[in-house]
């Protein structure tokens, strides 16, 4: 009987608290707003969460590696502007998206070089890259967005299409995340990733090809950010040189909230997906309740702060114990 209860109480453990938060949010919003609980709206939330989810998939691993990448919103803007420009020049959509992804990967390569070869801290390197990407995006459109009259039907189907009511985009992103989760949990690369984050020096001494991994993940992050930009291009039906700051906070909130689930204190892809869905639910629900959008920014900030405090609080007993051991070893020579 006791065993049974302990199994039941397992789902109340701290690593599942974010899932409970999501459920509580959905229930609360459903009570408050009748348009929120509509079948279509719930799938619309899943669809919009995919934009953030794609933007920050690479970022999750970079933060797990104990680096940071603040360039992703501007690389997304750059990707969307390049695609828009190429389409306007008359190139086919597939080729334009490919060009956008390749040119954005170049930014990832530069960040990787700055960090690996020139030993610039990743925050500084990516702040530099973000400026360059943003200006490049503005230069492509000569300072203004590029608007479309119509979007390619295939892209439109991928972004807006539905199979049995489920958005195609969500299915694709779910498959992408399952692949990513496999990469993270079942391959050597995933282990190396967390090793690099835990102790960089030890990882290098143990022979992990750390530099190559840093290159690979910064390339991946830039490419996925650009792909997110292409998705946003399809949603706005225009190429925007500036996503106005809210994607920065949204993306980082998704990653850091995601760090609260499954592997506590470590960013992981499944957590990020849940985090992205929470952010999207909040935005959608608050909009339907008629709350101004800036209250959403405040709530996201508070959520992140509470999350961080919770992680540190759950780890505190452990830290206290280790500190005790240290003081003992100091005091008894």
């Amino acid at each position, binding site marked *: 009987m006791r065993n049974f209860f302990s199994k039941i109480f397992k789902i109340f453990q701290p690593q599942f608290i974010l899932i409970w938060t999501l459920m509580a949010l959905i229930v609360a919003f459903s009570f408050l707003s009748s348009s929120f609980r509509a079948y279509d709206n719930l799938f619309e939330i899943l669809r919009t969460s995919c934009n953030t989810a794609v933007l920050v998939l690479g970022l999750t691993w970079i*933060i*797990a590696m*104990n*680096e*940071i990448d*603040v360039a992703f919103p501007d690389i997304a803007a750059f990707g969307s502007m390049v695609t828009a420009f190429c389409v306007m020049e008359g190139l086919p959509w597939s080729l334009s998206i490919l060009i956008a992804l390749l040119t954005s990967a170049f930014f990832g390569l530069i960040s990787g070089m*700055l960090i690996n*070869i*020139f*030993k*610039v*801290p*990743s*925050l*500084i390197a990516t*702040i*530099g890259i*973000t*400026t*360059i990407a*943003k*200006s*490049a995006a*503005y*230069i492509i459109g000569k*300072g203004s967005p590029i608007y479309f009259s119509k979007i390619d039907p295939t892209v439109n189907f991928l972004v807006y299409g539905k199979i049995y009511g489920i958005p195609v985009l969500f299915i694709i992103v779910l498959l992408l995340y399952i692949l990513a989760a496999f990469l993270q949990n079942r391959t050597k690369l995933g282990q190396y990733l967390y090793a690099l*984050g*835990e102790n960089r020096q030890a990882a290098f001494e143990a022979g992990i090809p750390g530099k190559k991994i840093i290159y690979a993940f910064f390339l991946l992050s830039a490419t996925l950010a650009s792909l997110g930009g292409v998705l946003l291009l399809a949603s706005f039906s225009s190429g925007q*040189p500036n996503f106005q*700051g809210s994607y920065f*906070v949204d993306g*980082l*909130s998704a990653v*850091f909230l995601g*760090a609260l689930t499954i592997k506590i*204190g*470590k*960013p992981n892809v499944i957590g990020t997906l849940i985090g992205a869905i929470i952010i999207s639910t909040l935005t959608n629900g608050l909009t339907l309740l008629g709350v*101004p959008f*800036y*209250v*959403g*920014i*405040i*709530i*996201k*900030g*508070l959520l*992140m*702060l509470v999350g*961080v*405090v919770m*992680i*540190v609080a759950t*780890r505190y007993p452990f*830290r206290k114990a280790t500190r005790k051991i240290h003081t003992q070893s100091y005091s008894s020579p």
Partner: protein
Amino acid sequence: MAKRAKTDFEKHWAFQAVFPLLIFFTIITIIIVIFSILSKEFLTAFNLLQALKYLANTGIVSLGLTFVVAVGKSDISFHYVSCFAGMTMSYFIGMFMGGKGIPPIPAILLGLFGGLIFGIINGIAIGKFKLPDMITTIAVGSLAWGMAYLYNGGNYIYQNFLTSGIIQFSDGKLFGWLPFPVLYLFSFYIIGYIILHCTTFGRRFYATGHNPVAASFSGIKVEHYITLAYMICSLMASFSNMLMTAAQGNGNVKGGLVLLMPAWAAVFVGISIFKKPTVYGTFLGAFLIAIMQNGFTLMHTPYYVMDLIIGITLIFAILVSRIQIKSGKVSAFKLSGKEFQLQSTSQRGIQK
């Protein structure tokens, strides 16, 4: 006892110390020569004062950031916090008491106080409760930015700006020729230099940054210095944004967002030259940025092209001033272990 072999740094210390400075001044000279060829107004006394006014915005905010980097933390919330402070000031000038407003000096103090609150939150969370710095600052920053919207729903505040005399805060001149921003800039830098480089109090910031555990064992209250550094950073950022707000003549929620890149770049150019965050290094970094902004503005370059060239030049300047000598020959970009490194990166507090 055998004599210890000299390290590379000791053999070539003169080169190591002078070479980055030499490179830096070469870059500045090249930039000044190019601009004075391209534009006739560049090398005039009037324009020099204009350039110093540009320098005031970047310089003051990066001075505050220097303290945070000196305690080995990083702050990516100060630009959001500065938005909150600027909007607080605008609100009290333009909309308080049904549109009557209050005089500029109390409004400025209230704005500084508003910024200071977020600095204290940052400092206590990171210093006292040992939360990881990047997540905490992003969270507090988004709180501050969201709250900046509360004043007027994100719209501009421009009432009373012309009549209340707040314009004088930025456009006023001492003795009829010295603009106030230049005065603020130099007084802050002199005070900052004395505090950080000439007192025991200032050395403790560096001690905290280099090794917090050793610092706390030598009797330094580490969390107080971290809190203080974040408070100084948010105060300086708020002041800088209020100068910008006064110069523009309206309170804008997104006005402060441009401060992030130049401030970090200025601090890091300083670190590249002097191998640790210093007040004078930060000044040189901010000077490099300001002179380019001024020159491009004179040439009527579009702002986005300006950002691109400034970004590339900064990365170039940082890279070039990191060339060092290793075992007798100039090896590009190999760093010695003694180099000051940012402790930061996000997760440290959490993962342990």
